[in-house]
């Protein structure tokens, strides 16, 4: 035990002697929080709409003014030429074209089903789908009001209508920051764990100092624990720092138990650090290690469902996520912070992650050779 304590102290001294790293530990979360969190949003508003109104009647103008009044749309251009509208779409000056053909109002009057054409720039499929959903919502309302007007004249009576109300729990305003901040904390903790710990060992290898450690009587597990503990502490401190920044800067809610989150974070860091130490035994230079870790980090993070729901991934990707520690943390940190999920709710995740942690640490101890 005393051996481990001495080794841990040595590691801390070495880490904080490097001024760049000690600055990076607090600098990176600060930069990430301030710059990245507000930028990442899927909320779309002010969709740039180009209107071609060839009808020019009170009905068509009514429709256009409704779109103008909607918070989602911004009528950026009006034109009579389809070609000009296409060109604007081509040049990215507008996102959506609404084409109201001549005879629109006449068709409505004669109940001939008036047509309108909507053209969306669909390179970004999800934005296009959302824009289409918004504009068809406006068209639906417009249609319903027209029907009502017509019906009251003909007095057929009321038609069955389903009234739909909706609510968003845990995040009523769908604030995207609440969603992204936990995700960015996961990137932070993962990067600290994977990069710093592994590089530390590989650097000792590259510099030859690891041989000095190898000739001492310390045991394999002592070496691994001594390398693991300092970065575990740094990871947790960074997580706490990130949470604090989130609270101060963005007033991020924290619905669940802080203790439970940190318990899970310890488990997560052990899994990640075990992996880092295992990978470091496979690389002989920092350069090699860096490339391998970049690869793994990018895959882990993007596959974990940080930007996109992991559930809509294909089955093979979901299977992969069973062994992807970042996927567990990504899910659980959001559950605890936003929904206040308890121990029972995350029990399956704890079990899965514990198995991963056990595996990676065992692998690291097994692969570490005291001989060159």
């Amino acid at each position, binding site marked *: 035990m005393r051996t481990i304590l001495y080794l841990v102290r040595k590691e801390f001294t070495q880490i904080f002697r*490097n001024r*760049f790293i000690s600055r*990076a530990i607090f600098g*990176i979360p600060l930069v990430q929080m301030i710059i990245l969190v*507000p*930028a990442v949003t*899927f*909320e*779309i508003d002010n969709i740039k709409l180009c209107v071609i109104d060839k009808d020019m009647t009170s009905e068509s103008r009514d429709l256009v003014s409704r779109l103008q009044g909607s918070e989602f749309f911004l009528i950026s251009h009006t034109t009579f030429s389809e070609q000009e509208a296409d060109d604007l779409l*081509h040049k990215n000056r507008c996102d959506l074209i609404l084409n109201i053909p001549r005879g629109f109002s006449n068709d409505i009057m004669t*109940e001939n*089903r*008036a047509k*309108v*054409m*909507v053209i969306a720039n*669909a*390179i*970004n*499929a*999800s934005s*296009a*789908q*959302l824009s*289409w959903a918004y*504009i*068809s919502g406006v068209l*639906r309302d417009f*249609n319903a009001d027209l*029907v009502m007007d017509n019906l009251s004249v003909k007095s*057929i009576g*009321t*038609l*069955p*209508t*389903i009234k*739909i*109300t*909706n*609510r*968003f*729990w*845990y995040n*009523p305003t769908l604030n995207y920051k609440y*969603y992204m901040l936990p995700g960015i904390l996961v*990137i932070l903790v993962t990067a600290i764990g994977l990069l710093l710990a592994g590089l530390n060992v590989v*650097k000792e290898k590259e510099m030859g100092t690891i041989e000095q450690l190898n000739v001492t009587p310390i045991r394999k597990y002592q070496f691994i624990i001594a390398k693991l503990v300092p970065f575990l502490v740094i990871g947790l401190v960074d997580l706490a720092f990130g949470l604090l920044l989130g609270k101060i800067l963005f007033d991020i809610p924290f619905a669940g138990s802080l203790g439970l989150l940190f318990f899970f974070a310890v488990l997560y860091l052990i899994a990640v650090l075990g992996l880092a130490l295992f990978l470091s035994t496979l690389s002989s230079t920092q350069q*090699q290690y*860096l490339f391998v870790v970049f*690869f793994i980090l990018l895959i882990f993070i993007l*596959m974990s469902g940080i*930007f*996109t*729901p992991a*559930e*809509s991934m294909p089955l093979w990707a979901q299977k992969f996520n069973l062994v992807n520690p970042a996927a567990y943390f990504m899910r659980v940190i959001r*559950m605890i912070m936003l*929904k206040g999920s*308890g121990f029972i*709710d995350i029990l399956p995740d704890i079990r899965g992650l514990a198995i991963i942690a056990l595996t990676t640490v065992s692998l690291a101890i097994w692969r570490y050779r005291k001989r060159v």
Partner: protein
Amino acid sequence: MPGLIKPTDMKRFLGFVKKEFIHIFRDLRTLIILFGIPAAQIIIFGYAVRTDIKNASIAVYDLSGDEVTRDLTDRLSSSEFFILREMIDSYDKVDEIFKSSKVKAVIIFDEEFGRRLISEGSASVEIIADGSEPNVANMVTNYTRAIIAEYNQDLNKSPGEGLILIEPEVRMYYNPNLESQFMFVPGIITIVLMLICALMTSITITREKEFGTMEVLLVSPLKPIHIILGKVTPYFFLSLVDLIIILLLSWLVFGLPVKGSLLLLMLITMLYILLALSLGILISTISKTMQQAMFISLAGLMLPIIIFSGFIFPIEYMPPIYNWISTVIPARWFVTIIKNIMVKGTGITYIWKETLILSGMTILFIVVSAKRFRIRLQ
């Protein structure tokens, strides 16, 4: 320029480039990573990262349990968007089912839904979505609303005509099947090239510094500019090979061919590679150790590129300040160019502005890194 270089210099330079190539090709692992990363990323992220939702789990709390609500439940669960995970029987279960993250939304049909709909002409349904995933919550709500509204329209079709007065017709330009690939492939080209060029060069040059071998090079008869060019040249060609691999993969695997001029795409990509390489040199002049170079590449390049190139998050909808910040991120301009050439098939007339900006940035980075490198020599 070639006239200004003496033949002996040229010979030395070529010898140096050869040495660098040997360094790269000697290490099989570096090589596999150099080509394995882009290929694997294109395939994995092209397939796995999806912004659309399919088979989202929902629960239904049916207070009425009549024919209409059963019909509606069927409609919802038979659509490709939803899977009916559970029927719940109390309002308290909603919180429980959300907390264990089993479902994305709960749909609650009011009491006597069917009877009220027919006799009173109106019935209520409530959608409660799990807002902890805003995007999913939004989409699930929109899809549910659309399905219910469609059912409502079908219901009304029989008694009287003239209820649908306006028929919108939609055309999805450039991407009629709404595939995510059209967004991701250009984004990944942008990221992978920057990663390979900037990260690789900054690390190899810093490595020479950290190990002291840079001094050996500096006392050799090679001029500093030749050392840097020699370091960078192999990566320039390797990046081009990478680009070709990615384009081939995106064509063969995703069926996403280059719609516009391939030559134009290659030329502008070369410009972008040049820019990335000069950024790499710049980073290497700033950092003393490989760890530093890597941290700067990671924190200063990777994340901003992923975020600000607008390939996952559309820049147009970010707060205005960020729109401004993104203008200094080269990837933002490059991704626009690639999308234009690959997906829209537009020519230089549509992208000359972006190309000009990219050229300006390249020149700036080359000048700055050249200046900084010379300072270190004195």
